């Protein structure tokens, strides 16, 4: 059942929040043995929160929009009483968080019930959620394959039906890549839209946070619950809430859509290319656009991430190199040593690229691009074939997402039905602050039958 259906059944009294939570906890106990999405299950807290929802209903009080809906969060979000692991065993010795992250607070204020914390790549530097300390999160649709990353636990928990909603973070594609590989919906809002307060950082100038869901309407309701300014995140824009769910129009009338070609076709495998074409067809969109210097912009995102990420962990790399995740410690170290000139030029390139792209949104509301070059790859693989070339897997799953997040544009990741035997998604990209257009486009694809989330049971 999706989040809105769960909330409706509780509101009507057909179900109780307590029963929904017990069922979710039982499902997690059963299903997560295979998937390994959860690093902590907050059963006691979930039961308390569910009881509070049921008490509200019994008292005849109005229920908030996500009342009784089980959700879970990537383990870089603070959860009161849990240690914020951020995927690293180095963090396990830290004291538990004393309060919830702002987004966790907002989910709970909307009535959602927290059932646990979710696996991720160590310190969010990766695209496969192959975590040496906490194990790999398996793709629910093919358990020998990756769930994507770094929010792999979040996508897998939703794709396997263990939760209806999850939160993740996206610096270079960490919501969009796992959403694509696990076949769920994800939203990376505009940079600065949602506060990161109480979440463990990776790259301050690129870190975004956002939700996963099984349908566009759930994604919109969840995103609406998360919106709002927060002064404790200096990058969070002080903007008013702009609700998107009420504006999910019954059709895509008036939406001007184009498909990104050039770089985005060159790095798309056959299934990704098919997904991009199908999405465009569903809008009757035949315009194709080539953005300038996309490969350089992707390189800029790479440089900024390596440099800021490496600098963040420089002290720990010096003091406890062996405690770091073997998959990424050398990348962090090499990043910490990058010359300042590379970093500054990368930051200049970012602003330059946004100036090139922004005018496009006078002609188009939504741009379509594939989300990942390929569908889920086998766990343990280091390379994959892409249009006849052998490319390194760990850095390359984000080839199509990095240029977009580098300039902070809002993107909905949407699973496209039937593009191949395994799930694969597209990015629906809009102008800054126009998440409403991304979500409208996602809802249209869903209604047209082009987009579909299939829960792996």
């Amino acid at each position, binding site marked *: 059942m999706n989040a809105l259906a769960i909330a409706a059944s509780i509101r009507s009294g057909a179900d109780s929040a307590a029963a929904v939570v017990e069922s979710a906890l039982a499902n997690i106990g059963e299903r997560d043995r295979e998937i390994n999405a959860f690093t902590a299950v907050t059963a006691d807290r979930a039961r308390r929160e569910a009881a509070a929802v049921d008490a509200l209903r019994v008292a005849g009080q109005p229920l908030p929009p996500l009342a009784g809906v089980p959700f879970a969060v990537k383990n870089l979000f603070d959860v009161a009483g849990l240690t914020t692991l951020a995927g690293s065993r180095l963090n396990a010795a830290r004291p538990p968080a004393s309060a919830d992250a702002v987004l966790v607070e907002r989910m709970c204020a909307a009535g959602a019930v927290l059932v646990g914390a979710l696996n991720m790549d160590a310190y969010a530097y990766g695209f496969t959620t192959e975590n040496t300390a906490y194990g790999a999160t398996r793709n629910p649709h093919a358990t020998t394959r990756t769930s994507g990353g770094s929010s792999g636990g979040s996508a897998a928990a939703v794709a396997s039906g263990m939760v209806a909603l999850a939160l993740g973070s996206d610096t270079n594609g960490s919501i969009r890549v796992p959403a694509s590989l696990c076949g769920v919906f994800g939203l990376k809002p*505009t*940079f*600065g839209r949602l506060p990161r307060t109480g979440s463990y950082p990776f790259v301050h*100038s690129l870190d975004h946070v956002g939700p996963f869901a099984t349908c566009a309407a759930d994604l919109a309701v969840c995103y609406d619950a998360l919106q709002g300014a927060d002064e404790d995140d*200096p*990058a969070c*824009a002080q903007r008013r809430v702009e609700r998107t769910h009420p504006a999910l129009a019954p059709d895509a009338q008036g939406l001007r859509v184009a498909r990104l070609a050039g770089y985005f076709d060159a790095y798309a495998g056959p299934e990704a290319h098919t997904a991009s074409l199908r999405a465009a067809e569903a809008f009757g969109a035949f315009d194709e656009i080539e953005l300038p*210097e996309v*490969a*350089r912009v992707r*390189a*800029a995102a*790479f*440089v900024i991430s*390596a440099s800021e990420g490496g600098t963040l962990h*420089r002290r720990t*790399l*010096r003091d406890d*190199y062996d405690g770091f995740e073997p998959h990424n410690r*050398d*990348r962090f*170290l*090499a*990043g*910490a*040593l*990058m010359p300042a*000139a*590379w970093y*500054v*030029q*990368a*930051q*200049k*390139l*970012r*602003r*330059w690229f*946004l100036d090139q792209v922004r005018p496009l949104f006078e002609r188009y509301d939504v741009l379509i691009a594939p989300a990942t070059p390929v569908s889920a790859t086998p766990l343990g693989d280091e390379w994959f074939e892409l249009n006849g070339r052998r490319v390194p897997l760990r850095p390359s799953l984000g080839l199509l997402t990095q240029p977009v997040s580098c*300039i*902070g*544009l809002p993107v909905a990741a949407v699973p496209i039905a039937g593009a191949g035997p395994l799930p694969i998604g597209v990015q629906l990209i809009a102008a*800054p*602050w126009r998440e409403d257009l991304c979500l409208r486009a996602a809802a249209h694809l869903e209604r047209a039958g082009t987009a579909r989330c299939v829960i792996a049971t």
Partner: protein
Amino acid sequence: MTIAEAMLFVAAAARAQELSLTAEQLQRVAAVFARNAEIAEMVMSLELPETAEPAPTFLP
């Protein structure tokens, strides 16, 4: 940048940041750094106007 050049740079930069690397670590990190240098070359070789502003705190 060759691996040998990367090793020289990494060793010097690590010393400047008080990061001590074993010979084995130095080799691995230098290999990553050499790949980073190739990627950074794409960034550095684009000529931008002198007035181009960096975006350290980025608000689109």
